[in-house]
Each structure stands twice: as C-alpha cells, then as structure tokens.
C-alpha cells in the first residue's frame, strides 16, 4: 500500500487505505539516568474492522507506542520522530489543539487499571457524558441519554440508576465496562486497549473480550489490543506484533506468529507460558535472564544475551541490529540474523509448545 502525500484534513473515512499507518516511529524520553529509547523504529498498518495484538514483556514499549498514537506524551521531555497517520492525517508534529480534537472520535483509548483511570470524584455517568460533550458541545441532555445508552450497551444492569454511581461503587469488571463505554461514546474508528483485562478475573476477561468483539463488528472499528498475555492475543487478534526492547521483532497474522513463529524470542515466550494442555509434570522452558534496560540496550540484536541460538564471536548477533525482513510467507516479517530455513528447522525440531 503506498502512502500518498496528501494529508486529508477531513474526518471522513477513506476506505482505500489503512486507517492507521505507523512508520519508523521512534520515541525517546530524557531522564536523569540517560535517554530512554522506549520505541525504536516501529512500523505497522491497521485497517478498520481488524485487530492488531501487540505483545511483549513489561517495558518493551507497548504503552508508549499507543500513547504516541493519541499524542499524549509530554512533549517537553519526549522526542518523537517518524510518522503516525490516523485516517491519513499525520499526528507527529501536529498542533496540540488539532490532535485534541481527534481524540475520542478518531482514536480512543481504554486503560489497564480502570480504578485509577477513572476520576474518583465524579460519577461514572458524568464522566461518560463529558466525553460525548467534547465532540457534541452543548448537548447536555443528549449526552446523558447517550451515556445511559452506552452503559446499557456494555452490559451494565440498571444503567439509569448506575449513571449516578461513583467508580469505587463498581466492581472491577463493571469499571472496565464503563471505561469501554466512555471510549466508545463517540463511535471512534480506532480503539486502543492497553492491557484492558490484565486486572480482571478470567471469567470477566472473557466477558470483556466478547464485548469488544461485538462492538468491533457493530462499529467496524480498528482495534489495537496491547497485552502480555499470548492467550488473549490468540483469542482476539488478526495480526500480531511482538515487541522486545522497543523494537518490533516479529510481525504477521496471528496464525503465522503463534503457530509458526520464527523469532527465538517468540519461541521463548510461547514456551514460558504454562498451558492447560500437555504434560504438567514437564518443567517450563523459561527464557534465561531478564528484559534489558532501554537506556543501555545490548548491542546488535537486543535479545542476544538471552538467545540460545545467537551467533556471536565474529557473528552478527552482537554487532548488527537485525532488520525486520520478509519471510517466505506473505505478511510475516522477522528480525533475526538466522537464515529462514534454519529458523524453520529449529522450530520444527527443537521447539515444543504446550500443545503436545
């Protein structure tokens, strides 16, 4: 898909191009300890009606990526380069007031911990109505009706009465539903969910994931689902991006990445998670070591100190940063110096996933 230079300033949907295009995005924070390269050259595209799963361990840059799409960083201490196009419109470097007007309608966000993400002093209903009023100024009565409608839509019983409840009076699952109601009140075309179910129980998580599914079908929105839970990704995503140390190291369809992964880190992740199947007596196969510091990323492939297949000592792994290159399968890209046939062989012969 070729990106044209025309930056359409309309909120009209353009169906001929992806709704979200991120190209070589880099985000750096100045801190006392040094420069944190939280996101270091990430590119992806997302169309309406599809879901992209972003997985990775904590600190790999998932949240930073999503906050950048909404332009929510404090620009005084953050350096953002590259390009983020929402509905054809460049967000990076865009005037704050213009980005603000896009928030909530062109792109909306659900946060991880709904208790701290909702204002403790205002009622749930008021907070949802407030989000509606941003894009429909002056329509107070309509906003209230709409908030109640959304509460109902996300499955809150007695929405009329619950409109006046405070966040602390809701259970965790209901709070997250309210968060979703708030994010969807303006029918956003892009919804970013940052670990939306991490704080929830599995039964409630299942409800929320179902709800997001339904809503996506209804509104045809694009969804970015950020999570560290591969199970959740396998359940909801069409495409998956695996992040490590601020880089995307593997990208492809959910089947490609989860059933024929080609990156050693993805293998490690899949082998680390205990499963409901397979022999429970077997030891898990964890990745040794721990995730790197983003201030002082290892040279070459950032994963090399933990990689069992690294080629170092004259080899490229500790010297050159591997590029994200296409594989034989269309749409599947991997950043690893190992030759593809070697990766395929290792995966077929050595990597056991929980399923056996």
């Amino acid at each position: 898909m070729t990106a044209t230079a025309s930056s359409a300033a309309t909120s009209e949907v353009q169906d001929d191009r992806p709704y979200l295009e991120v190209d070589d995005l880099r985000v750096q924070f100045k801190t006392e300890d040094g420069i944190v390269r939280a996101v270091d050259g990430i590119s992806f595209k997302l169309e309406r009606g599809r879901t992209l799963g972003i997985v990775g361990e904590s600190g790999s840059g998932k949240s930073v990526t999503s906050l950048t799409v909404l332009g929510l960083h404090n620009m005084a201490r953050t350096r953002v380069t590259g390009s983020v196009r929402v509905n054809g419109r460049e967000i990076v470097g865009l005037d704050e007031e213009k980005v603000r007007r896009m928030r909530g309608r062109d792109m909306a966000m659900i946060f991880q911990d709904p208790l701290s993400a909702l204002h403790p002093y205002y009622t749930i209903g008021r907070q949802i109505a407030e989000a509606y009023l941003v894009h429909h100024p002056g329509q107070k009565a309509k906003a209230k009706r709409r908030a109640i409608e959304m509460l109902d839509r996300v499955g809150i019983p007695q929405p009329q009465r619950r409109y006046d409840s405070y966040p602390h009076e809701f259970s965790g699952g209901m709070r997250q539903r309210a968060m979703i109601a708030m994010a969807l009140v303006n029918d956003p075309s892009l919804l970013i969910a940052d670990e939306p179910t991490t704080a929830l129980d599995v039964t409630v998580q299942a409800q929320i994931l179902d709800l997001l599914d339904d809503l996506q079908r209804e509104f045809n929105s694009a969804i970015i689902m950020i999570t560290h839970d591969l199970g959740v990704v396998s359940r909801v995503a069409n495409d998956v991006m695996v992040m490590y140390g601020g880089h995307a190291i593997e990208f492809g369809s959910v089947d490609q990445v989860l059933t024929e992964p080609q990156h050693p880190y993805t293998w490690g992740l899949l082998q680390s998670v205990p499963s409901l199947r397979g022999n429970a007596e077997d030891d898990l196969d964890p990745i040794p070591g721990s995730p790197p510091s983003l201030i002082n990323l290892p040279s070459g492939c950032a994963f090399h100190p933990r990689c069992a297949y690294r080629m170092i000592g004259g080899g490229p792994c500790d010297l050159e940063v591997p590029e994200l290159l296409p594989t034989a399968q269309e749409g599947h890209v991997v950043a690893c110096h190992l030759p593809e046939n070697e990766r395929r062989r290792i995966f077929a012969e050595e990597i056991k996933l929980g399923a056996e």
Partner: protein
Amino acid sequence: MIRYLVKRVLLAILSLVAVSIITFILFFAVPTSPAYVMCGKQCDAHAIAQTEQRLGLDKPTYVQYGEFMKGLVAGRSYGTGELAVKCPAPCLGFSFRTNEPVTDIIGRTLPVTVSIVVGATVLQLVLGVGLGMISALRRGTAFDKAAVGVSLVGASMQIYFFGPILLLLFVYTMHLLPNPGYTSPFDDPGQWFVQMLLPWVTLGFLNSAIFARLSRAQMLETLSEDFVRTARAKGLTKWKVYGRHALRAAITPIVTTAGLYFGASLGGAVITETVFGVNGLGRTAVQAVNDLNLPVVMATVLLAAFFIILLNIVVDMLYSVIDPRVRLS
C-alpha cells in the same frame, strides 16, 4: 451523617471542658496570686486577702471551676447582698483588671481577630494555591523557579521581621496606608479594608508560601495520575483537564491542611496584632496572661479552642462533600 454530627459535637464539648480544666490547673500552678498583681503599690496582706475574697480566689480551685462553669451555662452573681452584680449566661466573669464584663471584651476584640484571620486565610489560599498551581502547570519554567524561590524565602520569614518592614515602608515612609487598626466594616468598609491590609499581607503572605509549596507538590502528583491521562485521552481541552479533573483532586489535601493551619493562623494573629498594635483577641490574651487575669485568659483560650475544633469538624464535612469515597462514621 446526623449521628456522626451529634457524635462530633459531643466530642467537641468534651474537648472544650478538658481545655478549660487544663487552663484552670495551669493558672493556679503559677505561684503569684493575681490579687498581688492587682493591688499595686500600697499592698499589704489585708488588701490582698480582701481582693482575693472579692474575686473568689480564696475558695478551693474546684469550687472556683464549678462556679465558672455554672456561670457559663446558667449565669451567676458576684458579691453578696446589695453589692451583688448579676452576670447573665453565658457569663465569662469580669476582668480582674478593669472589672469590665469579659463578654464585652470579647465582643470588642473578636471581630478584630476574625477580620485578620479570615482575610489572611483568603489571601493565603488565593495567592498560595494559585501560585502553586500555576508553577506546577509550568513546571521547570522561569516562573516556576521564581515561585519556588519566593516561597522558600517566604516560608522561612518571620512576622515580627516582615511586619515592621511593611509598616516602615508603606505607612511611615511612603504614607500609602493609614496606621493599621480596626474600624468596623459595617461602619466604614473602605477604612476597614485599608487598615487591615497590612496585617493581612503580613500574615497571609507568609502562610501563602507554605500553601504554594503544598499546592505545587499536590498538583504535580495529581497531574501524573491515570485519570488525568484519561481526561486528556477523551479530548478535553487543557483547561478542563486541569480545572475540572486535576484541580478537583489536588484540592482535597489542601483543604485539610488549610483547616489544620487555622490554629497556626491564630498563633500568627497574636504576633501580628502585637506587631501592628491592633487590639484583637490575641493581644488581649497575651496581656491577660501577663496580668494573671484569669477570666480573660479562660475566655480567650476557650474561644480559640472552640474555633479550632469547629474548623476541624467543618473540614471533615467538606472532605466528605469533595470526596465521595469518604463516608463519615
């Protein structure tokens, strides 16, 4: 809520009684008799005894306390027979020095102190909180650095240093303001205002330094809260994010501190009144302590305690209004 209020009021009364008992005990712990202070130059044992009897100081402490409390609740009369003086409830007695009913003294001096403290509190909240909030929002800018510097200086400055400087500058040198004093705002609001201005500025400015620092810290903390990020993600304008979301959350601890600070403001008022020679409650209290003037001491101490307790209750109630999570019980 009602139950809570009743409980708090009962507790408040209990505290006031405790305060009065302690004041009484402290007063009688002083070895010098007030009668001795009062009878002046021609003092002999007889005169002292007579005075003591007239003031009721010859009775045991607990009897005196009982009479005092009775007077407060039901009124009492002093002396016997023809000379008896009626003192209707709430009777705080008569000043040992001037024989003026203490209630009159209070009635004269209380408005002065209330004027000073309320004005200074308004000033310190508006100036302090405003300054703190703005420097939080402009964190790291020159404004912020200047504000932090000023509040550091302010917080370490003393009233008896700052007051006289202002007095010298604005009254004696530039003649911009009249000598501080008290005119009832009901008689001449303009005069009241200009005369009170210096005490307000002195007391309020110094306290505002403390509030500026507190508000800045609070606001910075709140700005990093998740719900502020949510508010921005909704697309709210900067001012709605700050005003409606951040400020509302940041103000809660400030209200609490302001309530607690009221006690300190009363203390500050004593010094301020002394520095500017304004006859308020504070100055009267200090005078009374020096004169061993028990009725006046009692009245001022009780009054101060009453205001502090009242403010604490008000702050707690406010807290539950601001923060829906707080349930009073």
